[in-house]
C-alpha cells in the first residue's frame, strides 16, 4: 500500500447501545422518508432489506455516493456509512467525512418516531474499515500508514489519549480498526 494512493472508500460503523430494537424493519419507512425529504447530502436512491440474512447488512439506504446501513455484521448492531464515490482531499479529510456522515445519520435515526427511544448509539465506540483491499490490505503496514490520519480524526472528536484503538480481522478481511473511548471492547 502506498500513502500516495490515498484510500478513498472508508467505512465507519458506530455501534448501537443495547438493548436493541426488536425489529429493524422500523428503519424501512424512515429511510424511505429520508429519500422523499432528501434528508441527507447524497443522492438517495432506494432501500434494500436484508433483515433475513443472519449477521448481515440489515436495512440499507442506497445512495449514489454511499450506503447507509443499520448493520448487524458480527451480530453487533450499528449504523455503518460506507463510502462508494471518490472524494477530493487528504486521507484524513475523507475519513472525517465518513465519520461525520455516520454521526449525522445516527443522530437523525435516534430522533425518528419509529424508534421512539428504542435506538441509541454509543458514539464512543466505532469501527473504521477501508473498502479497497489493493490500496489498503489488512496488514501492519497499512495500519502504520493510516494511523496518523485515524488518530488525528479520533483526537478531534474524543480528545487525545481518551480512547483505545487496535486493528482487527484476518488478512482476508478489509483493513479494520476498532476504537473505543476508555477500555476497548472485544470486536
Amino acid at each position, binding site marked *: 500500500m502506498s500513502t500516495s494512493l490515498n484510500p478513498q472508500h472508508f467505512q465507519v460503523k458506530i455501534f448501537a447501545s443495547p438493548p436493541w430494537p426488536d425489529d429493524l424493519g422500523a428503519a424501512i419507512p424512515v429511510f424511505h422518508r429520508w429519500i422523499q425529504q432528501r434528508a441527507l447530502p447524497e443522492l438517495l436512491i432506494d432501500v434494500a432489506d436484508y433483515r433475513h440474512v443472519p449477521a448481515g447488512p440489515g436495512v440499507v439506504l442506497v445512495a*449514489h455516493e454511499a450506503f447507509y446501513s443499520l448493520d448487524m455484521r458480527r451480530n453487533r448492531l450499528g449504523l455503518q456509512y460506507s463510502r462508494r464515490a471518490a472524494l477530493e482531499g487528504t486521507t484524513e479529510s475523507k475519513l472525517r467525512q465518513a465519520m461525520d456522515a455516520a454521526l449525522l445519520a445516527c443522530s437523525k435515526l435516534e430522533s425518528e418516531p419509529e424508534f421512539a427511544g428504542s435506538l441509541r448509539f454509543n458514539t464512543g465506540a466505532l469501527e473504521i474499515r477501508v473498502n479497497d483491499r489493493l*490500496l489498503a490490505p489488512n496488514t501492519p503496514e497499512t495500519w502504520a500508514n493510516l494511523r496518523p490520519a485515524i488518530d488525528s480524526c479520533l483526537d478531534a472528536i474524543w480528545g487525545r489519549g481518551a480512547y483505545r484503538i487496535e486493528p482487527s480481522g484476518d488478512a482476508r478481511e478489509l483493513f479494520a480498526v476498532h476504537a473505543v473511548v476508555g477500555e476497548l471492547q472485544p470486536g
Partner: protein
Amino acid sequence: MKASNSLWRDYLGARVPDVLGDEIEKFEQQISLKKQGKLDDKVFAETRLRRGVYGQRYDNGHRHDGITQRTLNYPQGELTKGPNTLWDAPGMQRIKIPFGGLNASQLETLAELAEEYSDGIAHVTTRQDFQLHFVHLEDTPSLMRRLAAAGITTREACGNTVRNVTACPYAGVCRDESFDVTPHARATAYFLLGHPDTQNFGRKFKIAFSGCETKGCGLARMHDIGAIAQVREVGGQKKRGFRIFVGGGLGPVPQQARLFDDFLPEEELLPLCQAIGRVFARLGEKKNRNTARLKFLVSKLGIEEFKRVVKEERACLEPDPSWTDWIPRVASFTERPLKEPGLLPISPAGPGDFARWHSSNVYPQRQEGFAAITVALPMGDITSDQLRALADIARKYTRETVRTTVEQNIVLRWISQKDLPALYRDLQSAGLASPGAGTISDITVCPGTDTCKLGISSSRGLASELRRQFSENGLAAGEAVSGLHIKISGCFNSCGQHHIADLGFYGVSRNKGGYQVPHFQVLLGGQWTDNAGAYGLAIGAVPSKRIPEAVERITSRYLKNRLDGESFQAFVKRIGKAECKAMLEDLMAVPPHDADPSFYTDWADAREYTTGDLGVGECAGEVVSELDFQLAACDREVFEAQLHLEKGDLAKAAEVAYQSMLDGARTLLKRSSLAPPAQADQVVETFRRDFYDTELFFDRFVGGNIANYFFKAHERRGQTHDAETARQLVEEAQLFLEAVHSCHMKLSAQPVA
C-alpha cells in the same frame, strides 16, 4: 468507482489467463469508447449484457418515492450505458458458475467482490449463478479480472447467448443417478462459451443436465436443451448417453420440452448442441423477442421437422476434436473425499437444532459414510463474512467440493458422516445452519421489485414475510405440508420458476378505486419433481397482503382433506380448480383505500404502491368502476378456459380463452366509445387502430408483443388444438388480460377528457 481500478491488471498479472484478460481489456476499451460517445447505445447494451453487466431498477433515472415521481440527478447526467439506462445508475453483475461448481478460493473471491463493489451480499440465482447488485459499470473490468484470476468468467452470463449450463448439485454423489453428469455439463459449458455458432441468437439459450429422471434437481424438461443421463447396453457394453429434450422453457408462456432423442451417445452431445445452436441462429426469430426462444421455433416447425433440420445440420458439421477429447478424462473429474468415511452415532448428541437440521439438510451420498449437506440461504443471499467462513469449512471437511443449486442454496459434498455434528457447529457459528432445506420455508424467489426493472410486486418482500410466518406460527408443521415447494416471481417472466412449484406466485397489479394494488397470481399444482414434470395453472389474483392467508388456507385444506398418501398435485387435480378458486375467492377482495391503506403498499416497502396512478375526477371514477367490472368478467372467462383445459375439453378451452381476449380488447375500446363494435373482426381492427398502432397498449419492455397473442388467436380461431397449443392459448389469454389491466390502469392515471 474504486480508486484501485487502474491497478488490478498489473497486480494480477499472469494470474489472469490471457484469453480472459484480452476479453476484459476489450470490454474496458468499449466502456471508454461509450463514455466518449463513440458507441451506439444498443450495441453497447448488448456488449455489456454479454459480459453479465445488467441494468437495475430505476436506472432510467426516475423513481417514484411514494409521493411523486423523482428524477435521480446522477453526476454524469444524461450519459447512458444503453437505451434509457444512465451511466451512473447502479447495476447488477451476473457471474456464471457452470454446473454450480466452486472451490474455496472462488468463494473467497466472491466474498471480496461482494464487499468491495456491491453491498456485502452475494446472491445465488435460480441458474446456479451469483449476482451482485448496486455495482457501478466502471468497476466491472476490475471485478472481472479478479474473477478471472480465480478461474471464473462472466462472459455470456446475460444477453442472447448460451446462459449458465446447470446441473444437478448432487451429480456424482446421488443415489438415483445413472452416472455423474458433471464432466458433460462442464464440457458443454466451455465448448459453447464464445463458440462462433452461438453468437447470433435472437434470444437466450438455456441448457441443463440431470443424472436421473425422477428428481427435480436438474429441471431438464424446462430447458431449451435438457439432457437426462441414461446408460444403455450397446453391443454387450454399457454405454453412457442422454435422453435429450428440446424447446422447453418457462417465461410468460411456459412450454414443456419435447423429446428429441431417447438415447444420444455421449460423444454426440457436443455436436448435437452445436447443430441445434446453428439451427436456432439461422431459423429462430430475431425481431420479436417475445417469440424468439427456441420453444417457439420447435412449435413452429413441429418436433419432427425440427429433428430433421437439426440432423441435417449435424451431418454438415466439420469434425471437431473438442467434441470428444474430454471423454477419456471423464474419470479424472471424479471428486474424492478429504476424510475417511464415518457413521453418525445412532442418537447423536448434536448441538442445538441439529436433529431438525439433519432431517432436512443432510443427504446421505451413495458413497457409504458420506453426506452432502445443504446450506439453506435465505432467498439465496449470503454475506461476505459467511462466504469466507464457508470457504474455511469447505477446506476443513472436504476437498473444496461445493455446488450452488437452482433452489438458491449451496451444497457441500463429501462430508464424512461422523463430522456432521462438528460441521453443524461450524455452520452455526457462521449463521449458516438454518434447517428446512427443500421444505416449504425454503422459498425460491427472483429479485422482483427490489432490484429488477420488470418487477411488478415485491417477490422478496412476500418471501420474507412467508418465511417469518412459517418460523413464528409453525405453518409448515406436518410432513405433508413441509415437503411442498413455494416459488415466487415478481412478474410473469418466471425467473422465480413459479410454474413448477406446488404453490407458485407471480406479481401482477390491480386497480381499486383509482389506486393500484399489488397482487400475486396464484398457481397451484406445478411439479418440481420428474425434472419439472408439470406446470401449474393460474387460479386467480390475490392481493399481496393476503397471500400468507391464502397459503395458510390452501395448506390447511390439503392437510385436512387429502386422501391417504395423496400428493399435492393429485389433491389439486381431484378437488379441481373451480374449488381451489372458491377456496380463495373472499381473499381476492380489496378493502377500500380509506378502510385499510396497508393493502396499497407492498411488503417491506413503505411507499404507497402507485400514488401516481390515482384516477382523477368523479366521472372518471364511475367509468373506471364499470370497466373494472368488465375486466373481472374477462378474468372469470380465462379461468373458465383453464377449467375446460383441466377437463380435457381442448376445443372449449381454446374458444373461451379467445373469447376472453376479445372481451378484454372490447373493454378497453369502451374507454373511448360508449358503443364499441360487437363483431370480432371489427373489435380486432379497432383495437389494432386505437391501441396497437397508437402504441397505447405498448409496454415499456415488451412493446406491443402481447397484443400479437390476441391478433394470432383471432387469425387462428376455430382451428383444432392439441393439448399443448390449447394450453399455450390459455396462457397467452391470461397474459393478454394482464396487459389489458395494465393498459387500463395506465390510462386511468391520465385525466379523462
